[in-house]
């Protein structure tokens, strides 16, 4: 029994050394790996001295010395473990004061390691000739070191385990299992130190638990790159053969033999180098393949989403296109059939006006669709000319003037507020006109007012009001378009600038929108190096905020910009 225990302790020590070195060597740049190496080292110190005490402890005097040495190792374990866990969980910064405290406490106990108040001596337990006996100070180490630091580490591990997902969760899970094995196993040693000698069978279970611990912990540390074991095996083999051949060459009897064998060594070394490189390349290719597959899957999901949006768009667009067509077709067919001759002249005029309005509606929907298609078309070339400067205030005044007939009909107010006489800006004037008109047009459409026409179908007691402001700072023009309309549901705002998207409440109110307007606006503004955002409150209104650089940086090519963006 004693022999089994003795050799088990030696095996555990060897495992700690090997795996500690392995993890350290795997990635020395990684702080967490370095700390794991250090942890394995203190574990090894602890278990090697166990072995030494069991084998070389000839009398109580020498056994006590080894017992104190092994307990110095044991004293260091909790704090190094805590340090490693903090680094492993990336919580080092948050808990560094706890760690400093842990090191101070550990230092305190280390100082007393070789005095009687920490380990008072050794005593015989069952078939163990010597076992350390705890001094009066030792219980404080158990509370402050073992239970407090390990307990706190466990709490952090469990918390992170539930907060994480996927591979990381498994990795943390392995660390938890490894820790339970290591610390659970270590725990079995303490009762015997306090004279509960009849609990000795526990230490057998304990030593096997401790043995399993480095296996699980190392697995956790290297798991995410487990495939690299292939490389390590090949590297080890190559180095081993090379060294063997080199030693053989150095032991040559004749010069000729030396040259031949050295040549062989040279050949083996080169072959080994290429072998390792080959395996590395193969692994890299494998990893790239995995990454490509993941990317493809992601792209596929995006395509499916786009496909769904396109189908939805086609359904809506065909409705939007058909509605004016059905009126144009209906009225003209009645004209052909002579029906219009039968109705009063005044009503006849309304019918003809209906054709005109629906044609315009049709034109604007088609323009939206064409613009959006153009924005994403590779042929699209709209270069912002650096030398083409124009006055933004004048442009806004022109746009607002153009909306006056509609505003009057709807009994709304559309006001321009500006402190600046003129704001000179460089950019593509016609595109910016399109973008800003679109914003104002949207505000008109989705703001019910006291007046109603065929453009908007909603009416309310309060007068609709749209305020456009423009000002400049050192390098930007800031434009806002604020309405007191229906507002946009908060959860739909992020979707709003996407192609074919419309807020759900807008879908109810105004079925003629193409769902492309804001997409076009965003493309134009961002193509000029600007930004667009919005704030909104349901039934209170929406404000769009646009920032445009006064001078677009280095002649942005809108086409290139959009194509680049599509490819990201």
């Amino acid at each position, binding site marked *: 029994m004693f022999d089994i225990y003795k050799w088990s302790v030696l095996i555990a020590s060897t495992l700690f050394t090997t795996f500690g070195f392995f993890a350290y060597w795997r990635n020395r740049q990684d702080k967490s790996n370095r700390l794991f190496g250090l942890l394995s080292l203190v574990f090894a110190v602890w278990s090697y001295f166990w072995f030494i005490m069991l084998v070389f402890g000839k009398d109580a005097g020498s056994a006590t010395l080894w017992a104190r040495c092994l307990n110095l190792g044991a004293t260091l374990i909790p704090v190094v473990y805590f340090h490693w866990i903090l680094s492993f969980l990336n919580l080092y910064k948050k808990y560094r004061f706890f760690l400093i405290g842990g090191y101070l406490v550990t230092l305190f106990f280390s100082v007393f390691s070789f005095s009687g108040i920490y380990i008072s001596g050794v005593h015989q337990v069952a078939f163990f000739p010597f076992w350390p006996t705890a001094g009066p100070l030792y219980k404080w180490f158990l509370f402050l070191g073992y239970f407090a630091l390990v307990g706190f580490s466990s709490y952090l591990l469990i918390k992170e385990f539930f907060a994480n997902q996927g591979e990381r969760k498994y990795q943390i899970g392995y660390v938890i299992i490894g820790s339970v094995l290591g610390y659970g196993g270590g725990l079995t040693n303490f009762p015997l130190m306090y004279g509960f000698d009849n609990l000795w069978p526990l230490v057998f279970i304990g030593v096997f638990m401790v043995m399993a611990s480095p296996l699980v912990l190392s697995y956790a540390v290297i798991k995410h790159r487990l495939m690299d074991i292939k490389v390590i095996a090949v590297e080890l083999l190559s180095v081993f053969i090379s060294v063997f051949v080199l030693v053989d060459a150095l032991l040559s009897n004749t010069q000729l033999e030396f040259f031949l064998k050295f040549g062989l060594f040279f050949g083996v070394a080169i072959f080994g180098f290429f072998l390792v490189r080959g395996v590395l390349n193969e692994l890299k290719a494998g990893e790239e393949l995995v990454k490509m597959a993941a990317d493809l899957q992601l792209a596929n999901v995006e395509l499916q989403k786009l496909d769904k949006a396109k189908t939805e768009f086609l359904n809506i667009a065909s409705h939007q296109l058909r509605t004016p067509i*059905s009126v144009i077709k209906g009225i003209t067919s009645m004209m052909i059939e002579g029906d219009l001759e039968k109705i009063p002249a005044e009503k006849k005029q309304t019918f003809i006006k209906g054709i005109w309005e629906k044609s315009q509606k049709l034109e604007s929907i088609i323009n939206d669709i064409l613009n959006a298609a153009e924005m994403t078309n590779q042929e699209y070339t709209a270069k912002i000319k650096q030398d083409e400067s124009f006055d933004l205030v004048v442009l806004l005044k022109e746009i607002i003037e153009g909306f006056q007939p509609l505003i009057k009909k709807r009994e709304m107010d559309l006001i321009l507020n500006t402190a600046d006489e003129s704001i000179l800006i460089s950019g593509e004037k016609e595109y910016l006109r399109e973008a800003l008109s679109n914003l104002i047009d949207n505000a008109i459409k989705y703001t019910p007012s006291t007046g109603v026409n065929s453009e908007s179908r909603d009416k309310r007691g309060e007068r609709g009001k749209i305020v456009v402001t423009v000002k400049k700072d050192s390098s930007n023009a800031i434009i806002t378009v604020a309405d007191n309309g229906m507002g946009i549901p908060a959860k739909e705002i992020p979707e709003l600038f996407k192609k074919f998207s419309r807020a759900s409440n807008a879908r109810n109110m105004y079925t003629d929108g193409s769902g492309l307007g804001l997409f076009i606006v965003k493309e134009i503004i961002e193509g000029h190096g600007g930004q667009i955002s919005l704030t909104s409150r349901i039934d209170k209104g929406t404000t769009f905020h646009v920032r445009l650089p006064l001078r677009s940086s280095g002649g942005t090519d809108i086409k290139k910009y959009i194509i680049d963006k599509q490819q990201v």
Partner: protein
Amino acid sequence: MKKILFVEDDPDQILMYQAKFEMEGLLMMVSENEKETLKLALAEEPDLILLDLLLRKENGLNILESLKKNERLAKIPVIIFTNYDKKELREKSLALGAVDFIIKAKVTPKEIVERVRQITGD
């Protein structure tokens, strides 16, 4: 004179179809939502209902369902008369008991009048 109830909220279309139907000797009443439709249908007992699917605040399918659930109204033939062409909607409408599903842009006012006459036996 046959009575037709037109469930629609676009003023231009109301104007056009109402003019044509009246010229053809049919009486056309108009409602814009479910509440109005049920009230008008119960009071006037129309011979046929023309129902749009995309209304400002309502879904025409719900109106169709309510009509078919009402004992007194279930027998009135309903034509879905819309520009929103979607296979699922067509199937669902017919399953709910609509007699036809007609795309507005595909027919002239004269043609819809003929179809209505055919169904009402006018």
